[in-house]
């Protein structure tokens, strides 16, 4: 304790003797670490860098002069003058005996080729064990991703520490005692029946193969290992692909700044979608005479119903000609493009450049519109920057963390681990959400407030802070403007008056307000629960005001972090895939900015902001937009009221879709261009933490699928742009010339470091993890308070539709499911469409968990299976939008927040009834995706 409490002493050099040699270590560095850096190897099994050393296996014992017994070098720190011997006969005898005892209990058939026990036994020349073997436990093969073979378990508890201390999923325990001591899941349940979320951290931690990827896929040696970055969420975990015969056979976490080796179930086991038989491998052209209609269900196995194969030349010519003709005949505003937050920065940049320079308008948008547009609108208005002020892992420096409208254990699983780690270390965690989610268990305060009452609750917090004099006067004076108006406005919102509205008792509101305001460092993280409302911008305004009035921004451990959803939604936005701004958020209606880009690109540019996602759909419906180029997005699944969106896209004269699969959107296309998956190309992505990270090509694309950058370039050439981009590096260098925030990042540095934090304006800058430390990037340097009043949701429950529908995502499935429902493990874990509903509500319907229920709104109706979930508030139903069999967005309300133009995905009125048609499964989903198997010999 003294050691820890005295940080300085901990780093003091310590001189001690190691095997007779004088060495210099540190008071906070264990003997095994110092020994390693001096070239002295000590056997070890339970010790793994990154995990808390536990000292239980005793393979690393060493002799310390003057001590009665041997000491575990993984847990002992050197002291001045200490004499340590790692290779004395006495120490080696114990080291070898430990290995021999463990070897005696190993199964003959190993489950891994890289058993650390075998490796050490070989190094120390431990022969055949002389002891009888234990009675061996049976294998547990109940989980689709992980095989549990405890006959190879050495009880080192690395998996326990990985599960409990690192990921804090708290599934694995060490139960029973003595020789019966055993690794268990929950109550010694089969892993597949347990609360395991299959992050696989235990597998990565296991030294002997007792926990391994299922079906022996880990036994095949990889041909190559390729370092890259995860294609799923905005956390941006670095990883390593293990490739054999042009197939990814395994994924391991890599020590990146946002994940430090950790991954979640999608990142680790969701890689095989790239080799699913539904991959588009050749360009397709719509058969003449096949009409487009909004009413369809896509079965990718039946693609011939509507399409025929084409050569690349034919398809590209057709695609380009259609777009060109609409532009030339109906004007520049008749075209629009949707880029993708799943593509690279370089692709996003080129795509928006193609629309702006080639189509001639700013009608370019992407799914940021559906996730954080309102957050960004509020942030731009208040502090003129949409970027996060602090990185997620900065929660470790916080005293209070407020997570609101976010379910990070599901949607940002690795980010959630940092929050849980912080909570375990005593950081006070406040979780505010209408749904009680897994993170709540780690919280000191859980505010399960009534859906749609964010502003009421947040204003009540601000009321308390004002009333009790907890504001940061100096911060308000020096760094903000408009405080008086805010102060006057919140006077209407006392906690006592708001308690009945938001459902949180006034004393709790006051306690939380005090906690947040008075801590040394409070950090707010939020997600789509804040943004996807008609008052999403107001919600975010309140959070910004909360931070500014208490001075809780601009220092380590304190600030604002809207958790980004897609792996590259930050980068796609930075790169200008937004109708109002050029790259780096330079407004299109700012003449200076426009001039800069007109000069840089050598074309005239439209000074008017373009249309947003839902506006484009509306314009298409009205015939104002006649042609579209959609790259890697699936609005026919992801837009609100998809019936309407599908009708709009069906009405287009010409639709070009570039994707991996025959998505619902692709089904309405005239030309489909088979593109590459993330592991099939090079490129950079930017994560929620403002880190530009390099993805590397690991495998060749299937068939004649082509790299997206090449496809964009070819389309551009066919609509009159003379482009010759051959490699993402060239695009990235062009971007640096017009995006000051990344001007200092070189491709070479990315190749070396894999990850660079920005702003990084000059080459060699280390990057800036905490921003807004001295001022906000506004004209005056001040942040602006914007008061907000209560605006109810557009569609409140009534007698006909008495239940609130909340939509969102689930852990295993990514967005519309195009990728994850084609990944064997993910599809096996969550095969069927479900609606989460409180068990009492379910009982009131006279239905049992697992029964089919029908959920109906004014816009549509779906049937799916009921899942009992005590965390879902009474009177509400939660449905993930990834299931084509029961597409949640058939029900959602397409009304928009007036500022962010984001639809109200988090709230609409439905009615729920028992029964209905069983969801109709087509050729994917429902557990059909083949589970990864060992690569063919």
């Amino acid at each position, binding site marked *: 304790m003294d050691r820890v409490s005295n940080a300085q002493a901990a780093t003091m050099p310590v001189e001690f003797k190691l095997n007779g040699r004088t060495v210099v270590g540190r008071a906070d560095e264990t003997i095994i670490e110092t020994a390693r850096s001096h070239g002295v190897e000590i056997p070890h099994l339970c010790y793994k860098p990154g995990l808390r050393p536990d000292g239980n296996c005793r393979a690393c014992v060493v002799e310390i002069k003057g001590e009665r017994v041997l000491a575990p070098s993984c847990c002992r720190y050197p002291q001045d003058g200490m004499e340590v011997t790692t290779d004395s006969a006495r120490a080696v005898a114990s080291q070898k*005996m430990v290995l021999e005892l463990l070897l005696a209990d190993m199964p003959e058939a190993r489950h891994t080729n890289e058993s650390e026990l075998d490796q050490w036994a070989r190094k120390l020349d431990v022969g055949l064990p002389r002891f009888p073997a234990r009675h061996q436990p049976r294998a547990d093969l109940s989980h689709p991703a992980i095989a549990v073979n405890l006959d190879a378990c*050495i009880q080192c508890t690395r998996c326990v520490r990985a599960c409990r201390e690192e990921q804090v999923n708290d599934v694995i*325990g060490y*139960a029973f*005692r*003595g020789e019966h*001591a055993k690794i268990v899941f929950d109550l010694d349940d089969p892993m597949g029946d347990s609360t395991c979320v299959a992050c696989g951290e235990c597998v990565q931690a296991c030294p002997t193969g007792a926990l391994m990827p299922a079906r022996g896929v880990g036994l095949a040696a990889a041909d190559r290992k390729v370092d890259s970055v995860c294609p799923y969420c905005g956390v941006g975990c670095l990883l390593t692909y293990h490739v054999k015969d042009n197939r990814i056979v395994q994924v391991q976490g890599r020590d990146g700044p946002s994940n430090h080796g950790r991954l979640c179930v999608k990142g680790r086991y969701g890689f095989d979608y790239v080799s699913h038989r539904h991959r*588009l491998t050749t360009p397709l052209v719509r058969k003449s005479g096949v009409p487009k209609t909004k009413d369809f269900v896509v079965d990718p*196995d039946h693609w011939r119903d509507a399409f025929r194969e084409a050569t690349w030349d034919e398809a590209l010519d057709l695609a380009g000609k259609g777009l060109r003709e609409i532009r030339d005949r109906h004007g520049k505003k008749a075209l629009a493009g949707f880029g993708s937050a799943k593509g690279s920065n370089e692709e996003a940049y080129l795509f928006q450049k193609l629309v702006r320079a080639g189509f001639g308008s700013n009608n370019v948008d992407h799914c940021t519109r559906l996730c954080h547009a309102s957050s960004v609108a509020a942030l731009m208005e208040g502090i003129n920057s949409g970027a996060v002020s602090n990185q997620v892992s900065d929660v470790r420096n916080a005293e209070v963390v407020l997570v609101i409208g976010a379910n990070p254990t599901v949607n940002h699983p690795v980010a959630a681990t940092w929050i849980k780690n912080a909570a375990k270390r005593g950081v006070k965690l406040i979780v505010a959400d209408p749904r009680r989610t897994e993170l709540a268990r780690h919280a000191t305060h859980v505010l399960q407030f009534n859906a749609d009452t964010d502003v009421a609750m947040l204003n009540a917090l601000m009321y308390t802070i004002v009333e009790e004099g907890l504001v940061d006067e100096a911060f308000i004076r020096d760094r903000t403007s408009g405080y008086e108006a805010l102060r006057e406005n919140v006077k209407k919102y006392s906690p006592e008056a708001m308690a009945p509205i938001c459902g949180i008792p006034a004393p709790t509101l006051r306690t939380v307000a005090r906690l947040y305001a008075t801590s040394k460092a409070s950090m707010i993280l939020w997600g789509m629960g804040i943004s996807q409302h008609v008052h999403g911008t107001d919600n975010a305004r309140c959070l910004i005001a909360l931070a500014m009035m208490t001075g809780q921004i601009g220092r380590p451990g304190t600030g604002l972090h809207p958790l980004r959803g897609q792996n590259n939604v930050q980068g796609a936005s930075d790169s200008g895939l937004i109708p109002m701004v050029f790259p780096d958020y330079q407004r299109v209606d700012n003449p200076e900015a426009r001039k800069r880009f007109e000069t840089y690109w050598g074309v005239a540019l439209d000074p008017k902001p373009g249309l947003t996602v839902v506006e484009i759909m509306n314009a298409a419906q009205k015939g104002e937009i006649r042609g579209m180029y959609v790259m890697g997005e699936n609005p026919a699944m992801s837009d609100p009221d998809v019936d309407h969106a599908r009708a709009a896209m069906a009405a287009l004269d010409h639709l070009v879709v570039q994707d991996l699969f025959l998505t619902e959107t692709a089904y309405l296309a005239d030309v489909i261009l*088979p593109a590459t998956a993330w592991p099939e190309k090079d490129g950079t992505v930017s994560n929620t933490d403002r880190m530009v990270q390099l993805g590397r090509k690991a495998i060749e694309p299937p068939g004649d699928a082509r790299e997206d950058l090449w496809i964009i370039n070819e389309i551009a050439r066919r609509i009159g742009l003379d482009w010759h981009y051959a490699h993402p590096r060239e695009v990235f260098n062009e971007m640096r010339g017009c995006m000051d925030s990344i001007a200092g990042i070189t491709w070479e540095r990315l190749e070396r470091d894999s990850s660079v934090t920005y702003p990084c304006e000059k080459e060699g800058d280390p990057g800036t993890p905490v921003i807004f430390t001295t001022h906000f990037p506004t004209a005056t340097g001040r942040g602006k308070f914007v008061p907000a009043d209560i605006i109810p949701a557009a569609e409140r429950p009534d007698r006909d539709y008495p239940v609130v529908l909340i939509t969102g995502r689930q852990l295993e499935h990514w967005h519309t499911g195009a990728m994850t429902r084609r990944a064997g493990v993910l599809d096996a874990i969550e095969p069927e469409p479900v609606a989460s509903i409180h068990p009492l509500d379910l009982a009131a319907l006279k239905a049992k968990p697992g029964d089919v229920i029908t959920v109906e709104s004014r816009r549509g109706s779906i049937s799916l299976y009921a899942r009992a979930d005590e965390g879902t508030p009474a009177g509400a139903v939660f449905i993930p939008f990834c299931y084509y069999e029961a597409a949640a967005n058939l029900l959602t309300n397409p009304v928009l927040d007036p500022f962010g133009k984001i639809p109200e995905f988090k709230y609409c009125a439905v009615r729920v009834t028992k029964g209905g048609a069983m969801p109709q499964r087509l050729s994917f989903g429902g557990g059909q995706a083949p589970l990864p198997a060992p690569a063919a010999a």
Partner: protein
Amino acid sequence: MNDRAGAATPARKPKVRATLKGRQPQPQARAEVRQLLGDAPRRRDLLIEFLHRIQDRYGALADHHLVALAAEMGLAMTEVYEVATFYHHFDVVKDGAAAPPTVTVRVCDSLSCELAGAKALLEKLPKLLGKDVRVLHAPCIGRCEQAPAATVHQHPVPNATVEKIQALVKARDLSHPAARDRATFAPESFIEPLDTPGPGSTVSPAYVGYDTYRKAGGYRLIAECLAGARDAEALMQKMEHSGLRGLGGAGFPTGRKWRIVRAEAQPKVAALNIDEGEPGTFKDRVYLERDPHRFIEGMLIAAWVVQAGACYIYLRDEYHGCRAILERELARLKADPPCALPVIELRRGAGAYICGEESAMIESIEGKRGRPRLRPPYVAQVGLFGYPTLEHNFETVYWVRDILEKGPEWFAGFGRNGRKGLRSFSVSGRVKKPGMHLAPAGITVRELIDEYCGGMLDGHRFYAYLPGGASGGILPATMADIPLDFDTLNKHGCFIGSAAVVILSDKDRASDAARNLLAFFKEESCGQCTPCRVGTAKALALMQQPKWDAPLLKELSQAMMDASICGLGQAAPNPILSVTKHFGHEIS
């Protein structure tokens, strides 16, 4: 892009996940658990207490209750499960599986009881008692002078016979008989050999209650301390001069321990170890059953000297009578305190020898598995709840008042063969008068047998002895003249530990004793470190061979002694080495 139109998916039954992943708390179980917990704070350190409440009420820990308890406490299910399965006295049963019978008979089969016929009881009882009664073997229950000992649920059966057990089962007489509190008692009464209580069959001797204790001058000393009439420094010096050492077995000088903990920063706590589990040891029980307040006052004085703000008393679960006494007397003390009291909490073990190890006990008080901690840091620096902790064995603080009142010279004035002080020997085995004998430190085993134990049982010839319980090794009768004290036995590969002396006769074999002890260690190993977890199991397997592989056992023993985390694993090989050294004829 596979052209597989028509590859119709076969008819299927959807694999619907109807609930969230894993077990979910059931409303009824949740209500039952809530009722049992009442308004107790849902603190993690109370987990074992809560598990006791469920076990006591329902006779088992069913899965649905564990799930509900986890939800109620905000713990992960596995955190509850790994604790519940660690302790012998919790019966974790799968939902749907049969609950254990309502009555459990535990027959102690540790060495002294095995010598006295525990095996025969274990063989006969199941058939005689029938299906409604579960018969389990138990590690030492601390009644070695009453061997063979058993318990019918919580009712101890000294000198157990099939008939006695049957009668209690039949009468469903399952509780520990209550004790009267009107006795007068002074520890000196044990000093005179002739006055020592014999084996007896009483399990509830009368004890000194709060009023009697105070009337006889009790709690005056602690009141003086708090009133400023005593000087902590002077008290520490007295303790140092008395030579009192830790009587749990490790023998750390008491005065020095106080000085070390006193020098640590506040907050500090005290932890009192009454997890008397070393086979052969029962001295703490003998004192506690008769004179609880002398212990409590000693604890309060020690806590005052080191400035500990809270005292946690950890009592082994087997001592149900002692628990009743302590609960009652602590309540009386708190109701009418002689002076300001620190926080005093009584915690109940759950059946785990390892929790007698000081850091394992701390883990257990924190509501966790009894898993010894690695040292450094020492518990005096980082102990219970991370605070500097004064940890003492029961008997150590039991002597504090007498030493301070009578002076250190009084205590140091006892002794024999050049040694100083008093030792409470728990003697069992083949002697006429087994029991707790308070004798001068340094007495030899021959003197102890002859002067205090009435000699060997008729028909038995002295063959060998264990000087310090299961861990202290085994010595032959030819070495019966070694003074018994701290440090005197080390050169023979043995130690006195908690002064539990077990006497073997020519009817016994040291190798059988060693096997019994290794079986005990194997069962009681916490399972944390390889040398102990795997080592005890492999050693026992080798010892079950007719001929021991002595060189391999020796090699294994050395690694266990050198590389185990705690005293259990380090001392477990002592019986093996003793047998190979002194009783080689038995195993070759």
